């Protein structure tokens, strides 16, 4: 086999081994962290409420760096080969060296190891964030959502109903228990990085942690026919006192209406 090829293989092999090692170490470290942090969190009286927005943004950035590095490496190697091995005379043929059995196996097994290390590392990170997304804090405001073509109907614990307008207090986790009257919809709040389908016959849930008062877009992410693109709502995060006032007032109005109906009947 040609000497330059050997040198090249040795060099590439070393890079691959290093990548594999660092991937493996990163994976191991993420597992250690998981074990260290979780019991600590549970020992505290109140569980620390994870911030899924920054959790999502962090993992997204990490993955973006990861895939950019992989992409750039492949692209650079490709461009280098395209430049270096362009045909110089019309009769020239390729000179692919024949791989020995060891090299052939190595070129398969080492990349497998590297890719798997990266996969498992990302899977471990993703799983951790997934757990945060799925475990709802105890102290929360629980609101029921029934979606329909083409509206979001929210029902608060005291019976107050709103349509396409979800009002919540800042500083308290909000849990939506969702179902649907007709077809499948998907309640997406892009600013809180969370969505899940609502559908007939099943109850699904999402939760999020509103921190500062403000308005956010709610939008439907599952195709539901004619007005799918107009199925929008508003999430209004209010200052806690303002929310309390609104909530009490609406509740009182509801009581009044109930009394009037029963009185009339």
């Amino acid at each position, binding site marked *: 086999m040609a000497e330059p090829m050997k040198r090249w293989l040795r060099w590439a092999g070393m890079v691959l081994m290093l990548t594999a090692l660092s991937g493996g170490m990163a994976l191991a470290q993420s597992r250690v962290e998981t074990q260290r942090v979780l019991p600590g969190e549970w020992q505290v009286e109140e569980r620390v409420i994870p911030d899924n927005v920054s959790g999502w943004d962090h993992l997204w950035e990490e993955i973006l760096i990861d895939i950019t590095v992989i992409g750039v490496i492949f692209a650079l190697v490709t461009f280098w*080969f395209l430049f270096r091995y362009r045909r110089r005379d019309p009769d020239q*043929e390729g*000179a692919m060296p024949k791989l020995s059995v060891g090299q*052939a196996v190595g070129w398969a097994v080492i990349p497998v190891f590297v890719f798997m290390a990266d*996969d498992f590392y990302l899977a471990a990170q*993703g799983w951790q964030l997934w757990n945060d997304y799925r475990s709802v804090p105890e102290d929360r405001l629980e609101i029921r959502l029934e979606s329909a073509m083409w509206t979001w109907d929210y029902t608060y614990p005291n019976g107050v109903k709103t349509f396409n307008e979800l009002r919540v207090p800042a500083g308290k986790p909000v849990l939506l228990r969702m179902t649907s009257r007709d077809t499948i919809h998907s309640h*997406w709040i892009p600013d809180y990085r969370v969505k899940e389908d609502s559908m007939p016959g099943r109850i699904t849930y999402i939760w999020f942690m509103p921190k500062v008062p403000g308005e956010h877009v709610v939008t439907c992410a599952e195709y539901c026919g004619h007005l799918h693109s107009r199925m929008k709502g508003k999430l209004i995060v209010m200052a806690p006192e303002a929310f309390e006032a609104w909530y009490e007032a609406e509740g009182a109005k509801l009581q009044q209406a109930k009394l009037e109906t029963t009185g009339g009947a």
Partner: protein
Amino acid sequence: MAGVLREWLFTTDHKKVGILYLIGSVAAFAVAGIMALLMRAELSAPGPTITANPSQYNVWLYFHGAAMILGFQIPALTGFLANYLVPLQIGAKDVAFPRLNALSVWLFFAGIILALLTFVLPDPPDVMWTGYPPYSEITQGNTAFYSFTVLLLGFASILGGVNFLTTIAFMRAPGMGWNQLNIFTWSVFAAFILQLIFVPVLGTAVTMIMFDKYLGTNFFDPTQGGDVLIYQNLFWFYSHPAVYVIFLPFIGIVFDIVATFARNRIFNYKMVVYGGIGGILLLAGEVWIHHLYVTGMPDWLRVGQMVTTLMISVPVGLMFIGLVGTLYKGSITFNTPMLYALSVIFLMLIGGLTGIPLAVASIDINLSDSYFIPGHFHYVMAVAGTFAIFGGIYYLFPKMTGRMYNEKLGKTSFWITFVGVNLVFFPMMMAGLEGMPRRYWDYSQFPQVEGLHHLMTAGAVLVAIGFFLALVNWIQALFKGQPAGNNPWGSRSLEWTTASPPQHGNFPEIPMLSKDWSPYAYGSSQ
């Protein structure tokens, strides 16, 4: 004239069947492409632009998706390319069951015609290519046309599967072992294994939809004991492997093109075949839940298939190493087919790597069903696949017609299309990150994505111009092209050893191959 028509309609020659598949699928591609242009025109500004009726937009979208996947990509790859190339590459006279082959192309045309009825029906289907219930069952649209189109095209695929597995297993030229097959032939073999296993599942799902809507059953109606999610599981149990039914043959033809124009052996052939193609076969059926990450499936299933989905990167990565490695110490020229093949590497890098965040369930919880998704899958499957098919058409053009296309026009058309697709699909992913969901007829509530949409519409116009030039090139070359000779590329593969176009029966005499023959026997160090 009547004689020619008769000859083509009732042909059992695999090459003619292949060309019929090519004509049908390019027609489907053109119509579905016009739908894409209509959608881009509608989305060129927020609010209603060319139609004030969202349902009209939904019909375009339905037709675009269904026709591009079921009417263009799968038939062009497993119908046209497989039919034309596989018997030639293995040195056979024809496929194992030529009449079955003719039946499958008839079914394909029936399916295409049924799909085209979308434009004359009073209530055309508007169920997207996925056809999710309950919507597909409560809509005014005629979902039956969707179901029948899928069933006809699926049946054509099953016939093709039986035919090609038999052909490749039993009709290879004397002396040709499994490790002497072209990568393309291997990839067709694997794609048809997937079709045979999984198409019946899709057939079941769309039949159940039809029973529910028209015959009063309640498979997917929870108020009557059904469940809406069963359909999605059945659908993606087929339709994710279907992505590999598209991916495998297109990466297969790219391998053959790259080897030819680099005049080089495949780098680590066995790794590509057994690790790459074999690995995808093994994993294809265990990842469908990643389409259901936000449907409330059990957590263990979502986390479990997050791992299997990420592991798809392993066989795909091996194929990439094989593909890029094939350039090593090659003798590379940049003819039009090679430009298309090399661009597939680039498109697959962007498309494949953006699949990694989507594989992570907790990232997908935000990005699922956003514009990021169509951006990603157009790169990885739609555009990469289409570029591979176009590369394949250019590559085989001299073989099919005996004439050479116009190289300059081919390259011009390639670069226009290539710039165009990147202008369309990269901003698409960015719009998804800005919070815009897919399948929207109007985006007035997301003012921040308006600029991106302008870019996308401009890109779509470029893509249309590029593809139109390609079409002009082929039609012109068909009648006026220079004679190409039998082997214009200097390939060592069997299909180039016979006449262009090959006569009925393919080879003057059946090739006899030695133990160290290889379709990639370039260079001196064999």
